[in-house]
């Protein structure tokens, strides 16, 4: 079973929840927030495997090129352009669709590589963790997220995916194929606005979803009205307490501050199994 933890808004507690669940369930954890991965700061794993991930970009052999312009014509991303006597590529725009390589009549284009990021794998606090770290300056997160999932999702057992914030393509790449999506939010206008967007995004994938409210305590009826109208179950509330924020600051797990939550987290798994 694959459970994705997403949120829309950043800083609502995705990683806090994902790490606590991985410990409570003895599940494998994939940190797919590759722009800013944080789960390893809490699990402090001993890294046993590191792998560099590359994406394909075209390389031009100007000796063979006749500057016919077919490559420029097929490219929908403006990643390659042709002037009389020279061809320019823009690797940061390229989506690796292989269109230019396929249309070149002179076979003047070949496969090059750009480093997207690295994947690290290791064990910490009883949890098997794999996480991606995007190269700084590299714009595209999705290829790294795909590679992380292709290598480390374990069929047959439980895997948790800690997703990036937002609701764009990177989030869908992370959530796609999950059996359930936990949406972590906070009872505030920001939390609700972004939860609305995230719930819509997850719905387009057809993945069933439920909500965990972090920093609970203030009365915010709009949130509950939204959950009811959307038929989103409220699965758990985590109170708003300074001790939790302080523990988080130092990389302590939620379960260390609130061991009483363990039971609720453990019993979440069978109920997700029933709804997914």
């Amino acid at each position, binding site marked *: 079973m694959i459970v994705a933890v997403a949120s*829309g*808004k*950043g*800083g*609502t507690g995705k*990683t806090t929840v994902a790490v606590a669940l991985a410990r409570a369930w003895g599940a494998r954890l994939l940190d797919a927030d590759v*722009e*800013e991965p*944080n789960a390893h*700061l809490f699990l402090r794993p001993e890294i046993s495997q590191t792998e560099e991930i590359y994406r394909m970009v075209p390389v031009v052999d100007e000796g063979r090129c006749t500057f016919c312009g077919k490559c420029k014509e*097929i490219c*929908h*991303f403006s990643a390659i352009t042709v002037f009389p006597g020279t061809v320019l590529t823009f690797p940061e725009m390229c*989506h*690796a*669709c*292989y*269109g230019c390589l*396929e*249309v070149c009549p002179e076979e003047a284009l070949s496969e090059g590589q750009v480093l997207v990021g690295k994947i690290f794998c290791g064990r910490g606090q009883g949890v098997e963790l794999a996480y991606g770290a*995007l190269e*700084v*300056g*590299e*714009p*595209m*997160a999705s290829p790294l997220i795909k590679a992380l999932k292709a290598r480390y999702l374990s069929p047959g057992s439980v895997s948790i995916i800690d997703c*990036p*914030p*937002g*609701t*764009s*393509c*990177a*989030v*869908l790449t992370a959530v*796609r194929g999950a059996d359930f999506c936990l949406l972590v939010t906070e009872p*505030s*206008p*920001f939390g609700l*606005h*972004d939860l609305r*967007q*995230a719930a*819509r*995004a997850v719905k*387009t*994938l057809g993945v069933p979803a439920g909500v965990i409210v972090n*920093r609970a305590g*203030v009365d*915010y009826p709009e949130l509950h009205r939204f959950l009811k109208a959307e038929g989103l179950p409220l699965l758990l509330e985590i109170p*708003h307490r*300074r001790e939790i*924020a*302080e523990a*988080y*600051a*130092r*990389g302590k797990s939620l379960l260390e501050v609130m061991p009483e939550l363990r039971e609720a987290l453990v019993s979440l798994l069978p109920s997700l199994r029933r709804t997914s």
Partner: protein
Amino acid sequence: MKEILVVSGKGGTGKTTLCAALAALWEDSKVMVDADVDASNLPLLLSPRLLERTPFFAGWQPVRDEEKCTACGTCREKCRFEAIGEDLEIDLLACEGCGVCAWFCPEEAIRMDEKEVGEVYLSETPYGPLVHAELYPGEENSGKLVAEVKKRARRLAEEKGVGCIFLDGPPGVGCPVIASLSGVSLCLLVTEPTISGLHDVKRLAALLRHFKVPGYLVLNKADLAPDLAEEMLAFAREEGLPHLGSIPYDPEVFRALHQAKPLPEVSQAPAAKAVREIKNRLEKILEEVAT
């Protein structure tokens, strides 16, 4: 014209709260921008009145003419994104819009249509004009939408003879952040003394160095972990990120959020006071910055 971008690496550190507070405190005319197009929260604090809404098109999507299609399967064979299933159904969520399927279809049964991926808004607020946007959930091209929002804000600022643009940036270090960085005068890095905050701000600082953008550190929730705060400030000194100010952990901030108003308008508490000091220092720094 001066552009000030508020970024953080990690989400939820207080970018929007700071940006809204600056909007309320800044006396000179300015244009506000929400560049976090997939979780656009700045409008929630600025009481905007919508003036203009324009659809935003970016990228392409395949449309198949079933009459012409002979189900030969060439499209599926050529697609690198597993976006065409065994039944030759096109999965638009997996599709990246490369058009390779359309190009190679022997029957010319696939055409590529431009795709509407979001909306750009111009609003009026008590603090000046606000340019914002919404990326439709799950869409690509957030970077292009960010670039569009910035372009409009610059045009508006020029028309109105406004000297400053304040941008509330996206989290992370990827495509939307890179798009929001282009042409800014300086960045405010809003962070918090947590191990995640420290880890993420290091990556963000590396990104700013890469693109040669000057950064200033704002430490939020500063008293949450004094030793980590010290570590953060030491890092900022090493990295050449001047410390613009610190904001204490203050429950008033969460309360202000619920009133949907900029912090200084509803609170005189320590956090609001700290934000005023930050605004004063920023004003002095901007006097030195060339436009």
